[in-house]
């Protein structure tokens, strides 16, 4: 259990040390929602809560940094939030000098419920590091199927899609102004379920070298499509080919941004990739 007083003290400290606002979850009439605490004596401090639900805090920070250029922010970050912020910094969406992290380790229960590969940030200020609990069930189930059945397996899952775009909208790593999923040349607009397999393959490809395995897409998907397992497979390929895991090492450049043309990427990614 996280000690509430300890957390409040950490937040006050960040605010006193120069952060203009602290992003965390507060109790809003019975729901936990993200909020900015803006003063060390703010009454919001009493409403701060930890646990229960997760929100795309990194995504919210991207907007805050853009909207308030001179401001500095601190955030109560879990392992997944940190990974997103690290990768977003490499993609020039986050200025790491303007964001400070207070590291929160997930409980064992939370780690298991999330199937999380790394349920703690680099530096843990609150909580105890729990064992990673990476979950590969779905992808293993699919991997051993013969080709036509595997296609049917995914087709069945994707046939429930109602094109809410929740997977993209909630994704901390999705920030493009023009989204390929909305390009009528690539995906026919207005059709439900969306074209198989283009819609979901485009998204999966865009997640290569980018997905930090936070699992918010799975949580947002009303169709129970095992999206995260697809993107995980993409990351396994990235690791096998390039030894790269998104969001891990702030110093290491993303190999996909060092590669040449799109064609070359496809060549490397396309050979032997099976999901």
């Amino acid at each position, binding site marked *: 259990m996280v000690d509430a007083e300890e957390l409040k003290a950490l937040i006050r400290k960040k605010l006193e040390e120069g952060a*203009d*606002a602290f992003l965390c979850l507060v109790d*809003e*009439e*019975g*729901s*936990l*929602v*993200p*909020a*900015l605490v*803006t003063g060390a004596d703010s009454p919001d401090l009493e409403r701060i809560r930890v646990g*229960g*639900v*997760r*929100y*795309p805090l990194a995504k*919210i920070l991207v*907007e*805050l940094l853009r*909207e*308030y*250029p*001179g*401001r500095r922010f601190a955030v109560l970050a879990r392992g997944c939030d940190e990974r997103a912020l690290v990768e977003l910094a490499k993609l020039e969406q986050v200025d790491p000098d303007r964001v400070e992290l207070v590291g929160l380790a997930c409980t064992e229960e939370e780690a298991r419920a999330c199937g999380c590969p790394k349920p703690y940030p680099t530096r843990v200020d609150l909580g105890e590091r729990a064992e990673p609990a990476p979950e590969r069930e779905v992808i293993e189930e699919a991997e051993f199927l013969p080709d036509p059945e595997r296609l049917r397996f995914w087709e069945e899952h994707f*046939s*429930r899609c*109602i*094109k*809410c*775009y*929740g997977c993209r*909208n*909630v994704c901390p790593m999705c920030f493009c102004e023009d989204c390929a999923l*909305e390009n009528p040349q690539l995906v026919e*607009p*207005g059709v*439900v*379920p969306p074209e198989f397999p283009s819609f979901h393959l485009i998204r999966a490809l865009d997640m290569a070298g980018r997905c930090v395995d936070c699992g918010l897409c799975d*949580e*947002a*998907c*009303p*169709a*129970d499509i095992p999206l995260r397992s697809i993107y995980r497979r993409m990351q396994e390929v990235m690791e096998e080919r390039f030894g790269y895991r998104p969001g891990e090492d702030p110093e290491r450049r993303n190999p996909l941004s060092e590669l040449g043309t799109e064609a070359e990427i496809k060549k490397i990614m396309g050979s032997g990739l099976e999901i």
Partner: protein
Amino acid sequence: MADKELDFRLVPSTCVYCGTGCGVLLQANNGRLTGTLPLKDHPVSRGELCIKGWAVHEFVHSPSRLTKPLVRRNGELVETDWDTALRAVADGLRRTRDEHGPDAVGFLASARCTNEENYLLMKLARAVIGTNNVDHCARLCHSPTVAGLARVLGSGAMTNSIEDLAEAEVILVVGSNTTEQHPIIGERILSAARKGTRLIVIDPRAIHLSRFARIFLRPRPGTDVAYLNGLANVILAEGLQDEAFIASRTEGFEEFRRAVAEYTPERVEQITGIPAADLVEAARLYGRAERAAIVYCMGITQHVAGTDNVLAVANLALLTGNLGKPGTGINPLRGQNNVQGACDMGALPNVFTGYQKVDDEQAAQKFEVAWGVEGLSRKPGLTVVEMTEAAAEGRLRAMYVMGENPMVSDPDINHVREALSCLDFLAVADILENETLRYAHVVLPAASYAEKEGTITSTERRVQRFRRAVEPPGEARPDWEIVCELARRLGASGFDFASPEEVFEEIRRLTPSYAGMTYRRLGTKGLQWPCPSEEHPGTPILHMESFPIGKARFTPVTYRPPAEEPDEEYPLILTTGRILFQYHTGTMTRRSPSLVKEADRPFVEVSPEDAGELGITDGERVTVSSRRGSLEVEARVTDRVGKGLVFMPFHFAEAAANLLTIAALDPVAKIPELKACAVKIQGVRS
């Protein structure tokens, strides 16, 4: 550098589109809405939304928002100040009442506005003007549900809850394209199906859910009583009825048994086109299930036999004892975020709040005392379509329309236009420019859901809150304020409310099913009515022990064909409906970029067989005509519709399906038959 003031909040609210009642977080950044997130710990949506929910912020800052009061001078709407506009409305209504009597005035309330606003408008109509002519577009969607289920069960609302569908062994979806109209409920149904719940889908069109159905029946539109009675016939023939439930909790069974005797599968096949063997199989599946839920929507209600259809649905649930326990029930899905609430609030011509009847002396006196008035009219008022009729005939002379767009939503638009043009006075309060403003003498700019406080009631009777996230644009004001100001200018007392919460307090004092609710208790998760006391946890499942009328009443119904059947001149049946990416008359969704990207063009679906015979190709422009009107639209050749059937969404004013539809009314609920009329199609070139 001078840093901008940090002004960033995520405000919990409720989605403004369909009746599912999903929880949203509005992202308010520097006074503007910049995004929407799903509210993760919401009991219904659980952190999930459909595309419309994710886009719910997009129309709020549209340049088409109304920001100044307008009055018509020399034929033109010109900007004015609030006082002038409100005085003009007060004068218009007062003059009509004084010259032609209170029943020459009509009010359209709104399933888009809050409970508080609907309550105030109906109070204004009844207590200040003195008429029961107050109705809203529930008339066009679930009035047969309100009338039919009230008669059978004593309560006209969804009996069970959305979450509860997961408990069903069998779900019978009839006349509901759930995935497109109530997407999150549709996904809950699919989720149940993945865990073993078996689906029966009955719909003239192939819909998203039908591909997951164990049994998919495609009746001819408007033959619902026949196959519903047919299902009951088979259940009885095979002895699958719930004798214990029938004996202890219902009455009128013998009469019902006799009435369905003639609906043999063979006869039903002749009427509906559903193969007899398929009907039998569906009846067995539904009849044998321990827990079976029925989900229905406008495919059942929007017919001249709408009330009979609802009764036939209810009979089926009574016959099998599928009421009052988890995973069962009669579950009408309400189409608009607050259509349940607008009905609950008495924005209907025959009832006060909580369905207390205006012609019930005791109820009328209760409201007279509470409102401090005398002589409330005991005569039920006019319904939506009857108001149009009365306006055309000169009996109705003035109208106040709050947040509705009858020029696109109502049947036979040419007739609506004539009727509105006949009015001496029309005031419209709305958030966005729409087709109805053209006929208004005064236009009042209203605040949207994101700019005000209030409550709305979802399809599962869950009362939830809107919270103010941003300021209204320009001079726009919330409807509750507008109505109070108007009442004051009409010299009324009893409208001195400082906040919607104060209005809600008055509502709950007068409405037993809402009595135990307070804004604080509603919080971010809401409460389901009935909630009679402040200790009561709310009611997820109705009728567990008994029905409000004691025993439920089997009500036999007889099949009657649609008002207008295809003939040589108009050989096709037109059915209308909605699509996932748009909403109703499109005033909001067509101003939401991410929805417009998906679908922003009207179309008519034609079967490959009919297209072949008519020489029409996919994408071609065609003329669709009925006895009431004609329009040009793009043809989509698709097997979603069967031979003889064409489908059009009604969202698009430039090819408004309601130019074609018929205003033939169900005799009880007065709902028009929007789901079936006769049309013909020709290629534009020919």
